[in-house]
C-alpha cells in the first residue's frame, strides 16, 4: 500500500517536472524568440540596472562606502531586488495569460508560477555570476569570503520572493484592485530590501526594526558571505524561513481556491 503510494507520488513528481520543463521552454520562446542572443536577454536588465546605478553611486557617493566598494555594493543589492520585482510582475494575471494550457489536465496552476519564477531565478543568477566575474577582473569585487553563506543567503532571499509570488498570482486573479497596488508596494519595499545599506550602519532601534524584514536578513547573509570580516552583519536565518513557509502555505491555499472558481475560455 505505502509502496503504491510512493510510486504514485514519484510518477506525479515526474509529470510535474516534465510540465515545468515544457512550460519554461515555451515561455522562453514566446518571450525572447529564437533570434540574436535569445534568452540571454534575461540577464540584460538586472545587469544594466546594477551597473548603471552602481556607476551613478560611484560618482555621487565616492568610490567606497564604509570601506566597501560602492559599485560592488550596489550591484549585490540590485540583482536580488530585480528578481523580486520581476517575479512579482510576472505573477500578476499569470493564470489568465496561460489559461488555454489549462485544457491539459496535467498542468497545474502552481506550475505556471514555478516556471516563470525559475526562469527569473536562472536569469538573475546568471547576471550575478557574470557581474561578479567582470568586477573581480577589474579588482573591485572580492573573491567571496564565505561562498556557502552567500549561496544560503541568496536561496533564502529567493524562497521568500517565491512565497510572495505564490500569493500575488492567485490574488491578482481574485481581484483586479490588487494589481493597482503592486507597483507602489514594490517601490515602498525598496528601503526594506536591504538594498542600500548594511544594518550595522543604523542605530540599534532602527536595526531591530529593519531586521523584521525577511529580505534584509537574506541580504545581510549574502553580503557577509561576500565581504567576510570587512563588514559586520546582523541576521536571523529563521525569520525568512518561517515567513516563507507561512507565505507558501497561504499561497498554495489561495491557488487551490482560485483553481476551483477559475473560468477558462
Amino acid at each position: 500500500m505505502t509502496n503504491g503510494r510512493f510510486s504514485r507520488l514519484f510518477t506525479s513528481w515526474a509529470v510535474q517536472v516534465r510540465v515545468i520543463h515544457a512550460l519554461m521552454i515555451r515561455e522562453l520562446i514566446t518571450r525572447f524568440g529564437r533570434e540574436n542572443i535569445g534568452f540571454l536577454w534575461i540577464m540584460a536588465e538586472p545587469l544594466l540596472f546594477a551597473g548603471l546605478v552602481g556607476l551613478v553611486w560611484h560618482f555621487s557617493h565616492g568610490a567606497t562606502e564604509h570601506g566597501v566598494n560602492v559599485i560592488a555594493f550596489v550591484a549585490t543589492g540590485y540583482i536580488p531586488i530585480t528578481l523580486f520585482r520581476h517575479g512579482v510582475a510576472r505573477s500578476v494575471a499569470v493564470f489568465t495569460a496561460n489559461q488555454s494550457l489549462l485544457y491539459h489536465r496535467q498542468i497545474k496552476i502552481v506550475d505556471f508560477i514555478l516556471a516563470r519564477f525559475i526562469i527569473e531565478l536562472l536569469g538573475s543568477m546568471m547576471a550575478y555570476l557574470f557581474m561578479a566575474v567582470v568586477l573581480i577582473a577589474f579588482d573591485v569585487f572580492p573573491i567571496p569570503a564565505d561562498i556557502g553563506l552567500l549561496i544560503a543567503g541568496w536561496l533564502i532571499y529567493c524562497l521568500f520572493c517565491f512565497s510572495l509570488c505564490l500569493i500575488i498570482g492567485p490574488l491578482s486573479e481574485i481581484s483586479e484592485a490588487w494589481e493597482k497596488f503592486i507597483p507602489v508596494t514594490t517601490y515602498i519595499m525598496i528601503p526594506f530590501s536591504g538594498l542600500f545599506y548594511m544594518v550595522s550602519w543604523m542605530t540599534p532601534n532602527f536595526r531591530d526594526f529593519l531586521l523584521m524584514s525577511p529580505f534584509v536578513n537574506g541580504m545581510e547573509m549574502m553580503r557577509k558571505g561576500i565581504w567576510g570580516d570587512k563588514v559586520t552583519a546582523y541576521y536571523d536565518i529563521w525569520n525568512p524561513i518561517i515567513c516563507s513557509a507561512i507565505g507558501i502555505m497561504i499561497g498554495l491555499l489561495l491557488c487551490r481556491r482560485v483553481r476551483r472558481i477559475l473560468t477558462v475560455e
Partner: protein
Amino acid sequence: MIICSNLSKAYTHGGQHKQVLNGVNLAIARGDRVGLLGRNGAGKSTLIKLIGGVEMPTSGKVTRSMSVSWPLGFAGGFQGSLTGFDNARFIARIYQREYSDIRRFVEDFTEMGKQLRMPVKTYSSGMRARLAFALSLAIEFDCYLIDEIILVGDQNFQRKCQAEMFEKRQDRSMLVASHSPDFIRSFCNKAVIVHEGRATLMNDVDEAIEQYDRL
C-alpha cells in the same frame, strides 16, 4: 468509465449568479459514442469542460478511469503565439511522447505543410480543428471530448476523421457536442440531452433527437 456524480456548476460574476448545471449524473462506458444535444447556453460546453478537468465543478465529482483527451474545440489547448510545430512539441513533452512520431502524424493528417511553421493564432478554425484532432489522435486517448469543432472541417477532413476516429478506433469512447442531427444519428449510439441544468442519457438516438427538436 467516466462517472459524473451530482455535478453542479455555477458562475458568479459581479453579483450575478448563473446556475449552469444542477445535479448532473452521467456514466460513459468504454466504447460509448455519446452525442451531446442541447440549445445554445444549455451547458454542453460547460459539461465537456468539467469532464475534461478544464474547470472544476462547484459541487459533485468526476471520476475518470480511462484516459480522456482535452476538449477539442474552438478555444483552448494551444498557445496562439507559438507555431503549430512548437505546440506539437509542447504537447509531446507534457504527454511524454516522441516528438518525431507526433510530428510525422501531424504533418500527414493535417496536410498543412508550411502553415505548421506559422503561429496558431493565424489559423482558421478549420485548421485549428485539424491540428487539434491530429495531436489528440497521435497521443491515443481512450475517450475523446469534442466540442462542436468537427463540423467546421471540409470534406477531406471529415473523411479523414471518419477513417481515423470511427473506423480505426472503434473501441474508443467519444462525447461529442453537435447541433447536427445527421452527424449524431450516423456516428453516435447514445445521446445526452442537456436542458435546464440537467442531463438525460438516452439509449435511443432517434428518440433523443426528436425530443431535442421539441425543446
